C-alpha cells in the first residue's frame, strides 16, 4: 500500500466508511503482531494487544497527523502499549543458560542444540528459535531495532521516523545490533562446526 493509498483509506474511514479500516489492518498486522509477540513472548497476549492497538487507532484516527506513515504511528502505539502491559504484568524473559551480555551482566537463555545448516527445514526452524532466544540477550536499544527490522519488517525510513533518528544512525545502530546478535549465536555454538573450520583457514571474523 502506497502512502497515498493509505491516506485515501484513512480519509474514507473518517468520512464514515469503516470497511476501509480493514485494509489498513491487513497491511500493518504483521508489523504490529510481531512487535507485540517479541515484546510479550506470548501469542495470546500478542493477539489481544494487537487488537487493542488497532481498535485504539480506529477510535483515535482523527488524531493521526499524517506527518509520518501510518505504520510508524502504529509502531509507537504498539510499543507503548506493550511497555504498559509488561509493566503491569511484571513479566520476565524465560532463560536458562548462563551468558555474559554486552553490558557485562550475567544473563541466561535456552537454545536448542543444533548444527548450523539452514538448507534443512528443521534446522532452519532451530536457527530461528536460536535467533529469537538470542535477541532477548541484547541491550534494549539493540533488541528494539532488531525487532523492528528483522521481525516487523520495517524499512530504514520507518525505523528512523519511529525512533526520531536519522537513517544514517539507524544504519549504524542496526549494524552493531546484528554484530552483537551474531556474537551471541557464535557463543552458544549455533555456527560452531563451520566456524572451527573457517578459523583454521583464515584469521577469524568481524564478529
Amino acid at each position, binding site marked *: 500500500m502506497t502512502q497515498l493509498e493509505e491516506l485515501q483509506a484513512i480519509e474514507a474511514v473518517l468520512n464514515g466508511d*469503516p470497511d476501509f479500516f480493514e485494509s489498513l489492518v491487513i497491511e500493518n498486522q504483521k508489523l504490529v503482531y*510481531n512487535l507485540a*509477540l517479541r515484546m510479550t513472548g506470548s501469542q495470546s497476549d500478542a493477539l489481544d494487544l494487537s*487488537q487493542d492497538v488497532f481498535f485504539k487507532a480506529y477510535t483515535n484516527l482523527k488524531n493521526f497527523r499524517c506527518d509520518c506513515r501510518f505504520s510508524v504511528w502504529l509502531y509507537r502505539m504498539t510499543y507503548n502499549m506493550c511497555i504498559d502491559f509488561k509493566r503491569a504484568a511484571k513479566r520476565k524473559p524465560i532463560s536458562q543458560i548462563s551468558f555474559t551480555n554486552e553490558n557485562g551482566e550475567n544473563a541466561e537463555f535456552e537454545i536448542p542444540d543444533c548444527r548450523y545448516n539452514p538448507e534443512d527445514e528443521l534446522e532452519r526452524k532451530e536457527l530461528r528459535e536460536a535467533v529469537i532466544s538470542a535477541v532477548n540477550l541484547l541491550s534494549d536499544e539493540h533488541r528494539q531495532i532488531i525487532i523492528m527490522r528483522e*521481525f516487523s519488517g520495517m524499512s530504514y525510513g520507518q525505523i528512523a521516523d519511529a525512533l526520531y533518528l536519522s537513517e544514517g544512525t539507524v544504519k549504524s545502530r542496526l549494524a552493531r545490533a546484528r554484530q552483537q546478535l551474531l556474537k551471541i549465536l557464535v557463543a552458544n555454538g549455533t555456527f560452531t562446526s563451520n566456524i572451527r573450520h573457517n578459523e583454521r583457514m583464515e584469521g577469524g571474523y*568481524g564478529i
Partner: protein
Amino acid sequence: MKDCVKYQQLVSCYVDGIISQEDKDALEAHVVSCSSCAFLLKIYKDVFSGPADLSDVPPEALVSGVMNRVKRFDKSGGTDKAAPSSSSKKNIIFRQIMSYAAAAACIVLVLFAVPKLLNLGAASDENSESVSDSAQENLYSVSYDLGSDLKAATGETQSDATATPEVTTSDSAVATGDDTSAEVFYATVTITGALPDILADHPQTDIGNGSYYIYIDADMLNSLIELGYTADYTGAEDTAAPIVVIYTP
C-alpha cells in the same frame, strides 16, 4: 585481515541492499578469495531476511476480531463493548447488576409514590391510609398495574379509593424485575439445535415457547462470534442492557 575489517563493516548494508554499487562490487570481489568473509556474508544472508524467516504470521482472528469490535463500537454510538480483560468483564457484570438494582428501585418508587400522588386532595385520611396500606401489600406480593390504578383513581370518587388495583402476579417477574416478553437486550444470538460446549454449563431460563434464554457477557459474545455465530444488535439505547442467547433445542 585489515581489509577484512573494512569489508565486514559493509556486510549489514549489503544484505539490506542499501550499499553503493562501488562498495558492492568490492565486497563481492573480496569474498571470492576470502572464505572468512564469505562465511560471514552467508550467515548474514541466512539470519537476516533469509531462510531463518523470523517473522510470525498473524492469526486470522486478528483482523476479524478488530473489525467486529469496530462494528460494535459504531453500532453502540461510540462505546467500546469489547472487554477482553478480566477487569473489564467485572465492570460489565457490575453495570448489569446496577441496572437491575436501578430497575428494582424504580418499581419500589412507583409502588410508594404513585398512589400518594394520585390521592392528593381527593381521598380522606382514612382512604389514603388504606390505599397506602394496600400499596405496601402490593410491594411485597405482586407487580403493580399502573394503567388500571390510574383509571380507578381518575374515574372514581373517593368512595372507590380503596378499590384494589388490577395486578398480575408472577414470581419470576418479581424475581427478575421484568416481564421476559418485554425485556430489552443489547444483543441477541439465536442458536437452534446443538449448543456449543462453551455454553453447556450456563443456566437456561425457560421462556415458555420451547425456547430458553441464556444470559451471557461481552466476552462470551466475542467467543460465539469467533465460533461463527451471528450477533443481532437490537439497537437498545441502554448500553448496559443484557446480552442473551435465544436457544431452541
